[in-house]
């Protein structure tokens, strides 16, 4: 009963979004750190791929009455989630890198906004549950 307490809310899905946002933040920070490393190519975690997986997981969890399984944000090398969006690709410079610093910072900011949004909504859901339990508005 207690584990099913959260399944009717969006808390499991939002937790997955948070995991993804933090993992992607690390990858983007790695890109910015390696902006001058010769031979380093852009790395990223595809947001559309993650959203697709999340949608499937939510549908599956509805039919089987189980929680959205954790570990959606985890990817192996060669995973399609690791492909870089084509609009982020840049021309290859003479030192064999293709990182555009401005685009990386912009992506990081957008990712940060997504993270904060998911966090705020999740906190709100928790507080709603708490007010229901404590009968205190």
């Amino acid at each position, binding site marked *: 009963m207690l584990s099913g307490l959260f399944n009717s809310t969006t808390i499991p899905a939002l937790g997955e979004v*948070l995991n993804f*946002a933090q993992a992607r933040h690390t990858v983007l*920070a790695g890109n910015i*750190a390696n902006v001058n490393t010769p031979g380093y190519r852009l790395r990223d975690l595809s947001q559309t791929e993650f959203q697709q997986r999340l949608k499937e997981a939510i549908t599956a969890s509805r039919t089987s009455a189980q929680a959205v399984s954790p570990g959606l944000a985890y990817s192996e090398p060669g995973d399609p989630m690791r492909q870089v969006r084509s609009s982020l690709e840049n021309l290859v410079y003479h030192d064999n890198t293709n990182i555009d610093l401005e685009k990386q910072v912009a992506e990081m900011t957008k990712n940060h906004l997504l993270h904060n949004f998911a966090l705020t909504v999740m906190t709100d859901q*928790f507080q709603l549950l708490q007010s229901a339990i404590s009968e205190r508005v």
Partner: protein
Amino acid sequence: MLPALDISTSALVAQRIRLDAVSSNLANLNSLERDASGNMQPYQSRYVIFQTDEALETKQGAVGVKVASVQTEQIEPLYRWQPSHPYAIKDGPKKGYVAYPNVNMTAEMVDALVATRAYEANIGAMELSKNMAQQSLRILG
């Protein structure tokens, strides 16, 4: 916890070393140094080689950066006609010339600018990492 902070810090360290190399080059525009065989040679520019730091790799594919090595250039020095200089070349086709360092000041200044820009970008990334971590504490209400 928070590998993003470690990765950004590795970049700060690497860019600082690069800036040190640039400062060294600009400071030694006109100096001589003693080479392996004990002769006084003109100063050659130092440059750094960056490499991805596998020790900092996360499971999602984010890597840090490290300075693989600091190399010395091997370019032709500038020659000036100074036959009475104590270090003038005694014999050969360059007799009477003194060898001076051939540091390209413009290239070094541009390199310093690029290093500063990368440094600032990494500081920005660190700010976002910190902000993310602090915001996450709000889950506890």
